[in-house]
């Protein structure tokens, strides 16, 4: 009986808590109502009424914190605009939401979209290319990282402002290298070398090599061999009609994975970033591919020394470099000119060296503005984490080509799914060429549908 009383008291407390928070909530709601009314009525702000800029992003966890901090800094730095950063779910989900509010008053001013959504956004009709503002403003984009601009430029137009860019990098366990008699300062560079090293590193619970089940890493290993993902020069020069990733270069990647899988030197830790990182940190895999944005977290939590290296490439092809991953910021076209001006101002603010430096060191994403690398905090960070240097070098060593520029197709998210399925089938004993062909076929169907329905 006394138990019941206690429970009841507990419940009462909860109700009280809710009532209290309800009062607060109502106040907050009232306030927002008021401000809304004011903006509608007072078109001429007497005491510096701020223009609201809605900014949608897909960063959760620590990265969300980093964005919120930057936004707060920006809001404090001037008194014309008030940027409001809003988390909208994963990249896929936020894109879904955008599609349903695109072109209406509910649309945000700035939208963060992942790299493979580029083509979709260009065709969506909801956006205003940032090139418009660059031209109008005489903004000098040559100060920004060329390789990154390359990805987001189509027909020499910069459509969106790069924001969080990352590249793949191979992380390895230096202690395990030493224990296996390998040189920790001389990581393997080619598929064959990785295979040989994985053989030596596999030991008990530890597997030699692994990749996340994510299409991006396949795209990168394809690109570094100079392989194209789709025809029409990766979609950069015309209409895409079919997938090319099941060619020679793609097959090499799949054979590379298959041979290690058959030899028992390849680990599979699924498609969740956190899982493969945990596996690495807890010594279940000695080498794996990660995003440059993951380095600091891994280095911090690993009880051993972490090395970073360029992603491996096939012996039969030269190293071409990497494609930019991550996301960029898009300007919407359904909003007022005032808001656009504010959004553009915020975008420019984001590209300044101090902001980029802060962003780079807190998240591990690239600095879009290379000048940021001269900032003191970055230099300190690089001494602490020399691994960052490798990722920057790798990007700057990249040979610009249609392969490393990355493919432009509107059905990219779907195609990535097919690649993941193909890799999974490969791990279950599938034939490299056969599973790749299947993925290509599914991608082709998606491309065909997209072509059938576009232009309407």
């Amino acid at each position, binding site marked *: 009986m006394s138990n019941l009383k206690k*429970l*009841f008291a*507990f*419940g009462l407390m*909860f109700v009280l808590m*809710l009532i209290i*928070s*309800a009062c*607060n*909530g109502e106040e*907050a*709601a009232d306030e*927002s109502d008021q401000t809304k009314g004011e903006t509608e009525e007072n078109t001429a702000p007497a005491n510096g009424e701020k223009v609201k800029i*809605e900014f*949608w992003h*897909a*960063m*959760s*966890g*620590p*990265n*969300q*914190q980093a964005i919120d901090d930057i936004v707060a800094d920006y809001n404090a730095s001037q008194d014309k605009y008030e940027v*409001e950063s*809003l*988390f*909208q*779910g*994963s990249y896929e*989900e936020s894109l*879904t*939401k955008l599609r*349903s*509010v695109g072109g*209406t008053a*509910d649309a*945000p001013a700035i939208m963060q979209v992942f790299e493979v959504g580029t083509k979709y956004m260009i065709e969506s009709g909801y956006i205003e290319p940032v090139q418009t503002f660059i031209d109008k403003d005489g903004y000098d984009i040559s100060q920004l990282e060329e390789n990154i601009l390359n990805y987001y430029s189509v027909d020499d137009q910069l459509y969106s402002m790069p924001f969080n860019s*990352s590249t793949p990098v191979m992380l390895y366990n230096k202690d395990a290298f030493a224990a296996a008699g390998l040189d920790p300062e001389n990581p393997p560079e080619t598929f064959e070398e990785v295979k040989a090293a994985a053989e030596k590193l596999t030991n008990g619970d530890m597997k030699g090599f692994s990749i996340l089940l994510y299409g991006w890493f396949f795209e990168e290993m394809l690109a570094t061999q100079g392989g194209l993902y789709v025809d029409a020069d990766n979609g950069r020069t015309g209409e895409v009609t079919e997938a090319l990733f099941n060619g020679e270069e793609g097959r090499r990647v799949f054979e590379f994975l298959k041979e290690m899988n058959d030899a028992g030197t390849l680990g599979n830790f699924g498609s969740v*970033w*956190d899982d493969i*990182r*945990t596996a690495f*940190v*807890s010594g279940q895999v000695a080498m794996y591919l990660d*995003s440059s*944005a*993951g380095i600091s*977290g*891994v280095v911090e*939590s690993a009880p051993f020394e972490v090395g970073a290296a360029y992603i491996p490439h096939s012996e039969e092809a030269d190293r071409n470099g990497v494609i930019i991953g991550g996301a960029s910021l898009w300007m919407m076209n359904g909003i007022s000119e005032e808001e656009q001006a504010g959004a553009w101002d915020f975008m420019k603010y984001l590209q300044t060296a101090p902001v980029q430096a802060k962003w780079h060191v807190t*998240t591990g994403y690239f600095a879009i503005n290379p000048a940021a690398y001269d900032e003191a905090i970055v230099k300190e960070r690089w001494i602490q984490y020399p691994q960052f240097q490798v990722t920057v070098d790798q990007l700057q060593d990249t040979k610009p080509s249609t392969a490393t520029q990355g493919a432009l197709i509107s059905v990219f998210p779907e195609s990535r799914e097919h690649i993941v399925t193909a890799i999974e089938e490969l791990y279950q004993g599938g034939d490299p060429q056969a599973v790749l062909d299947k993925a290509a076929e599914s991608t082709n169907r998606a491309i065909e549908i997209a072509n059938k329905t576009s232009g309407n």
Partner: protein
Amino acid sequence: MKMPLSQKVLFYILLTIFAVLVFFPVAYAFLISFMTPQEVLMGNILPRSFSFGNYEQAFERLPLLRYLLNSFVVSTIVMAGQVLVCAMAAYVFVFLPFRGSNLIFFLFISTMMIPWEATMIPNFLLVQGFGWTNTYMALTLPFFASAFGTFLLRQHFLTIPYELYEAAQIGGVGKLKFFWKVVLPMSKTSVITLGAYSFLTTWNMYLWPLLTTTNDTVRTVQIGIRQLQSNESATDWGVVMAGVMIIILPTLILLFLGQKQLQKGLTQGAIK
């Protein structure tokens, strides 16, 4: 009934085994919610100390109180709306049947078989068209009519003698008065059950709030859990579990308080 001691002990052992199995995930999550990432990584079972650091962090990262309030408001509105709408419909099927009312009943029940996801896309476009995104309207109105609720209440109303209704009619008691003054009070159990059930299911809604809210004004607490999970960076499981605890606490308390009621009422739907 008397029970031999040995049998009693056996029952207690079995009960305890099941209790441990059922409650283990929650208890474990509770313990994790006090751990630092390192402790989690080492696979500890007990946290080193019961400090509320992770909870503070969870509250710091997100306006969890605001989300809790939103969930509470949305769930309460759906609860009230659903009980009223369903009770009115069930009343007709039991006390005011007309030619074709059975057909309508069957039509209503058939909606139970339509997966929500099958109608989600058009629904979303509809709500969007009304300009209801980021309003309580979008989160509540579509759930007022419920086949399950109508069915549940109908089953209970059927146990009220029809003679009572006839007597009331002869006695000049209006239909509305009979509904309010006789049917609803007599079906208190079912009404409360449906209320609790709809409150819980609304509280737990996941995909719909994610699609129809684009800012924090009406966003519900379930979305918080997703936001706590990192996307591209290592997940801090301690904070995530603290968030889970905060989210499940209100519904668990509600369930514990209303458990007897629920269990009595839900079976009314089962037995004709």
